[in-house]
């Protein structure tokens, strides 16, 4: 029952005073001090202890509300009017032509970012070389001019045109000569333009010269067969190749094409048929081709002529004078053997020589006729048009200029102030020419001396064409609008000659539609899609040789004697990265290690180990080299095994002074060592060496050259291979592998991406390295960083030397034993591409504390850059040392100013591959972006992935087809077949990391007889 009792809280309530009634209405007995608190005085007081929770609550609430603000959204602005066929993220491909080779250009939202070989080019689809791969960076070179220059001042094209026309009219009126100096022009349209220009200005003549000349061969063929052409060589038809200093796999005429031909006879497919060509190389400096030869014999420059005479005598039984090598018994013996084998291989052999001497090449022609090469391995009826330069014409030009006969000179794709034989003589003569125009894209050494620099676009911005072989035409089409205010040289010439068609695009099109397309039955649009037109090749005929050789031999012997004095014989050569130095500002090429010396960012003087010992020099000592003509440079010395005693080699293409940030003053110019004699350029001279004092360490990517007898390199000989295909592969003694995880329990589903690399096909040229760099945005780090052994290349090519012991005939591979050998001439070389092996039991994966590198279900070793904290433990634990660490912010650090440190050059980046920040590890991803793209394409097309849908960047660039990539779970894929080869071995398989890249043994076509010849 409810109590009726009432209790009072106080007398006030009982009495119900007015005060109480008033107060009782309020919730609180006392008024809250809100006013006080909110007044200024209240706010400024210290928060009392009792307000702590209030303050905390308010603070938390305020922060929570503030945190509800959305993070700023950066909108990418879509195209207002979308260009046709441009979809962000989806690349477009256009055919074009680089240096006479048809290529496929990948563009992403209008930016060309990658070059591939054109698969439509048929027999001319031979992969791409390093130059082609790197060329895309030239487009984004900030050292280029943005507007044309008139007397060193920026100008407009109309002002420039008015000035040039005025000058041309003056020249015309004076009746003096007009000269267009170009390197070999193999563009039919450009030739037509020059013809039109000549029609308007009849005193015009096109002087073609090449910095590295092939005039000798052309003249020799004119002399021997009445055909002034470079022949087409077919190394694929040769079972026996004998090369005298021709670096045909590298720099000689067309390296990637010859590589494809050469390896077709030596790769795993050929070996499976039991066939492999045999290759002898006689040369002075160690060339890329020399490193691949089965037998390589070092000869002095002065012995090259006598060696050829010896060979000629041995083959034909002739008795030409001078056929003796009194000081080189090894070469003499080897030549006898070569002669015997050449006669056994008549019609299936070829002899090539790298010399630019006409007489030498005539003798080579005679030898080739004697062994029946013409019509089989050498084709004179479908000649090569890559090089047509004429050394004598250029020499004559200097005389003309000196006599004041030249009123105007135009430089097209040529830079004689840098690469002429005697730059001083050239520039002095040039000063006498009143009007000079350069069609360069920058102020280079020659443009600097010209009144007008009519800047030309990169080939990726230009129209044009090429005709590098008889009956093989390819188109150059632009893949981007000209970035700067440039104009094609051809168009300028058309404008200046007041041609009827002044638009070069129209001109090219008219030219093709008139003279090339009808014969091939193709339309212009079809051409733009396929890129090439080939006509049926002519039948290659056999050629006879009937000339007397006495005069030739006399000339050869005279040249030989001239070199054979007490001085060092100096061999001037092109190396693979720099070639003739035209792309010296390309950081990718500067950082590409020379395949033989592994030197980047420099040239050097190479001498044999015993030679250095004899001269008292240590590696990297600065040596002053004084040529016979008085030209002197100081270069660091490199000890090069295989270099002939009494000789030294210096690479061309370095020492540019006006090319741009990356290339200026890298190395020393060797062109002035070249001499002009008997109508051609000579790349051989003599020099005196003296210590210059000091030392300069070269930036090498590999400093240890022997593989210490480790089974990471496995070799066999062809003889042994034919007896037992698994010979040398170590596959006879497999250990039982114990595993914590039974593999049958966790069957790999889907794809299992693996690779096979054929060591017998890989020539070591390095184009894969550049392809990988471009594809994967790999930073260029510069000379200092390479010196600190910090180059970032995901893919490298390891080059090992081994030496043949003359007494035992055994290969000596260990450093300590090599040190005791007396004869280091007999060196054999192996190139081993090394990249992330995507091990199934990857040691890198277990040690990463943050799981930044993990294994994928399709057999790849992933690298999550964003998760990487940079402990470098993975790199330490990688047995292959293929992981690369970003020591600095290479792409955005002013100290590495040779690569990407500006927004323009950053346009070359592949948007499918993220750039890596400082402090992050990176490595080969097996072009995961390509795998992903391939999968997506297949998915969109509602089909399964096919073998060959996905190609790695390195694989695609490789001329030799040495890299095979694919799905191991598909038993019919090419890689599965390749991995079933008995030659397959896995590097370091004994530590059971289960690498995913199989290597095929190196097979050398040598036998006891060739070994004996050496000893």
């Amino acid at each position, binding site marked *: 029952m409810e109590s009726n009792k009432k209790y009072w809280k106080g007398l006030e309530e009982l009495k119900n005073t007015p005060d109480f009634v008033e107060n009782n209405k309020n919730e609180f007995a006392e008024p809250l001090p809100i006013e006080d608190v909110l007044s200024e005085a209240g706010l400024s007081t210290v928060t009392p202890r009792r307000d702590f929770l209030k303050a905390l609550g308010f603070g938390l609430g305020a922060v929570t509300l503030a945190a509800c603000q959305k993070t700023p959204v950066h909108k990418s602005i879509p195209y207002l009017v979308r260009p046709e066929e441009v979809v962000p993220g989806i690349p477009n491909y256009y055919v074009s032509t680089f240096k006479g080779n048809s290529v496929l250009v990948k563009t992403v939202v209008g930016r060309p970012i990658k070059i591939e070989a054109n698969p439509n080019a048929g027999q001319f689809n031979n992969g791409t070389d390093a130059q082609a791969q790197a060329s895309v960076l030239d487009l984004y070179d900030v050292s280029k001019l943005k507007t044309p220059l008139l007397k060193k001042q920026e100008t407009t094209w109309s002002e420039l045109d008015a000035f040039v026309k005025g000058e041309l009219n003056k020249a015309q009126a004076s009746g003096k000569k007009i000269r267009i100096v170009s390197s070999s022009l193999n563009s039919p349209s450009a030739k037509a333009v020059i013809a039109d220009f000549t029609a308007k200005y009849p005193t015009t003549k096109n002087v073609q010269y090449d910095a590295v000349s092939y005039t000798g061969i052309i003249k020799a063929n004119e002399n021997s067969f009445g055909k002034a052409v470079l022949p087409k060589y077919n190394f694929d038809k040769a079972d026996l190749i004998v090369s005298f200093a021709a670096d045909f796999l590298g720099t000689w005429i067309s390296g990637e094409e010859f590589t494809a031909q050469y390896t077709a006879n030596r790769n795993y497919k050929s070996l499976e048929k039991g066939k492999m060509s045999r290759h002898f190389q006689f040369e002075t400096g160690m060339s890329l081709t020399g490193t691949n030869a089965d037998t390589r014999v070092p000869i002095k420059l002065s012995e090259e002529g006598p060696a050829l005479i010896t060979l000629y005598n041995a083959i034909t039984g002739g008795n030409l004078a001078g056929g003796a090598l009194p000081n080189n018994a090894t070469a003499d013996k080897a030549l006898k053997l070569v002669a015997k084998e050449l006669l056994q291989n008549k019609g299936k052999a070829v002899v090539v020589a790298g010399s630019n001497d006409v007489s030498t090449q005539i003798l080579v022609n005679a030898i080739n006729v004697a062994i029946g090469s013409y019509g089989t391995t050498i084709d004179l009826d479908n000649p090569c048009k890559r090089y047509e330069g004429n050394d004598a014409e250029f020499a004559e030009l200097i005389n003309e200029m000196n006599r004041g006969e030249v009123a105007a000179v135009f430089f097209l794709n040529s830079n004689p102030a840098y690469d002429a034989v005697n730059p001083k003589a050239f520039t002095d003569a040039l000063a006498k020419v009143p009007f000079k125009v350069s069609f360069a894209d920058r102020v280079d050494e020659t443009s600097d001396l010209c009144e007008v620099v009519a800047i030309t676009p990169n080939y990726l911005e230009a129209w044009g064409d090429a005709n590098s072989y008889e009956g093989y035409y390819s188109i150059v089409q632009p893949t981007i609008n000209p970035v700067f205010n440039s104009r094609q040289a051809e168009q300028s010439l058309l404008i200046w000659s007041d041609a009827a068609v002044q638009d070069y695009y129209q001109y090219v099109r008219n030219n093709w539609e008139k003279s090339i397309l009808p014969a091939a039955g193709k339309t212009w649009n079809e051409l733009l899609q396929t890129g090439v037109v080939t006509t049926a090749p002519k039948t290659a005929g056999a050629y006879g040789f009937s000339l007397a050789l006495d005069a030739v031999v006399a000339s050869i012997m005279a040249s030989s004697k001239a070199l054979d004095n007490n001085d060092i014989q100096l061999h001037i050569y092109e190396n693979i990265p720099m070639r003739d130095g035209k792309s010296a500002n390309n950081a990718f090429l500067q950082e590409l290690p020379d395949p033989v010396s592994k030197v980047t960012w420099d040239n050097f003087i190479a001498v044999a180990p015993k030679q250095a010992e004899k001269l008292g020099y240590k590696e990297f000592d600065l040596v002053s080299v004084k040529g016979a003509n008085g030209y002197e440079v100081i270069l660091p010395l490199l000890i090069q095994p295989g270099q002939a005693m009494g000789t030294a080699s210096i690479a061309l293409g370095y020492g540019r002074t006006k090319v741009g940030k990356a290339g200026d003053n890298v190395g020393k110019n060797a062109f002035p060592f070249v001499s002009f004699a008997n109508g051609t350029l000579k790349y051989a001279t003599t020099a005196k060496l003296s210590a210059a004092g000091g030392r300069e360490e070269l930036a090498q990517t*590999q*400093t*240890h*050259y*022997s*593989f*210490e*007898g*480790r089974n*990471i390199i496995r070799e066999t000989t062809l003889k042994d291979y034919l007896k037992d295909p698994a010979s040398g592969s170590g596959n006879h003694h497999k250990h039982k592998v114990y595993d914590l995880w039974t593999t049958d329990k966790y069957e790999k589903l889907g794809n299992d991406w693996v690779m096979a690399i054929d060591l017998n096909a890989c020539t070591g040229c390095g184009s894969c390295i550049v392809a990988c760099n471009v594809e994967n945005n790999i930073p260029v780090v510069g000379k200092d*960083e390479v010196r*600190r*052994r*910090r*180059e970032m290349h995901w893919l*490298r090519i*390891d*080059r*090992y030397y081994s030496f043949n012991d003359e007494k035992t005939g055994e290969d000596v591979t260990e450093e300590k034993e090599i040190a005791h050998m007396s004869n280091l001439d007999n060196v054999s070389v192996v190139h*081993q591409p*090394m990249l992330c092996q995507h091990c199934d039991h990857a*040691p890198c994966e*277990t*040690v*990463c*504390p*943050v*799981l930044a590198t993990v294994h994928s279900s399709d057999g790849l070793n992933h690298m999550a850059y964003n*998760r*990487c*904290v*940079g*402990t*470098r*433990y993975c*790199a*330490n*634990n990688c*047995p*292959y*040392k293929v*992981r*690369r*660490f*970003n*020591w*600095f*912010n290479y792409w955005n650090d002013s100290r590495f100013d040779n690569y990407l440190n500006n927004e323009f050059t950053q346009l070359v980046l592949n948007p499918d591959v993220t750039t890596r*920040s*400082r*402090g*992050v*590890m990176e490595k080969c991803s097996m072009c995961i972006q390509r795998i992903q793209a391939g999968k997506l394409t297949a998915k969109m097309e509602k089909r399964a992935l096919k073998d060959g849908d996905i190609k790695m960047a390195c694989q695609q660039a490789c001329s030799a087809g040495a890299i095979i990539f694919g799905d191991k779970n598909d038993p019919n894929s090419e890689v599965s077949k390749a991995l079933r080869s008995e030659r397959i071995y896995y*590097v*370091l398989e004994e*530590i059971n*990391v289960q690498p995913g890249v199989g290597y095929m043994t190196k097979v050398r076509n040598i036998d006891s007889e060739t070994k004996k010849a050496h000893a």
Partner: protein
Amino acid sequence: MSGHNESILREPLITGKDITYAQITDDILLPVENKPNKAWWIGFILSLCGATLWVVAVSYTFWFGIGSWGLNKTVGWAWDITGFVWWVGIGHAGTLISAVLLLFRQNWRNSINRSAEAMTIFAVICAATYVVSHMGRPWLAYWVLPLPNQFGSLWVNFNSPLVWDMFAISTYFSVSLLFWYTGLLPDIATIRDRAVGMRKKVYTILSFGWTGSVKTWQRFEAVSLILAGISTPLVLSVHTIVSMDFATSVIPGWHTTIFPPYFVAGAIFSGFAMVLTLLLVARKVLGLENYITMFHIESMNKIIILTGSIVGVAYLTEFFIAWYSGSEYEQYAFINRSTGPYWWAYWMMMTCNVISPQLLWFKKIRTSIAATWILSIVVNIGMWFERFVIIVTSLHRDFLPSSWAMFYPTWVDVSVFVGSIGLFFTLFLLFLRVLPSIAIAEVKLLLKSASEQAKLELIKEGHLDKEQVQEYIESLEKFDSVKQEEYAKI
């Protein structure tokens, strides 16, 4: 504790006449309660310069990147991890002394455990700075902790020895700190009781309300014993785990099962060397000869010779196993160590760690303060080289000769290391100023039983065997803090 008399055969742990409890407090608190002397200032300024250098070098590294060190694609660790392992190793003596020797009732530890533990803490701090600063992206260092995160279900890799390291080092640091601080409580209370003003307030807070009641002492003893129990496995585990950074890898020269015991022995070896380096100076400068006596020095030297010999055997075992394994990579790694381009580092290590400590077999050297101090520094140098040899010579030439490279340190490498020594000494010198460098309470325990004066009294009482007394008196000859005349009279 003082209820029984200690055998006269045992050498005294406290020397000097008329030592009282108050005297001990006064002696030990001398540097804490007074203005520092000139020697301290010189040492502190030098150390501070070193610490500043460390700040500069580490900031430079953070700003520009790890590239400012001399590392390369082949040698990914060099001075950084060498320094890290060196410091972690040095820390080990502290734990061994405080935990293992406590459990084994080795009373002589009472005089040296405090400084050794402080050294442990500071050495681990130095090591930990390397853990962070060697990372490419140190601002993400917390990613190695298994923290809940917003990156999906991203977790750390429990397979990685670096994660074990992180656990090992952080456990080690926290347990060492706890043990050290617990031990400090009665001593801080002593300072508190004698201090006035601001100092009193600070030490009051730091003393956690220590009352000195029997109950407090009882709990103190219990906690010390428990912490000693927890710490003891750490003596073995921490350096075992550090060694696994190398042992679990595939690199020849690293992939070695002998590493855990070998590293632990090496750690104790270097730790005792560092304790000697520090205490021989502190003893002199702070006038603590009566508490850190020749007996302590000799005992530590004996441990050094034991652990040094273990390390020496380990070096030889490695070589034997490399040969016996028949693995060419393993064999080459060891031949390269001793005869390759870094031969000098290897022989430096061999000389400093194995050969020169053998001098300690001679009692004269073992009990010579100068010789001991020099040898302790030699051992520290040798142990630095040991880690350098293991890390750099294994990495610089591993499987594929194409990648073989040399490591050349930059000024930043050198500065970070030299600076870390400066940092260590700065912390140690500050420690000497604010906290007692010898455990006051624990030393007092020894006064009644194990001190020279107590023993002298026993002798004077005359109930002891004459021969034993004679032996005891002879043993005192090596003590530099004992006045020999006293005994001549007896």
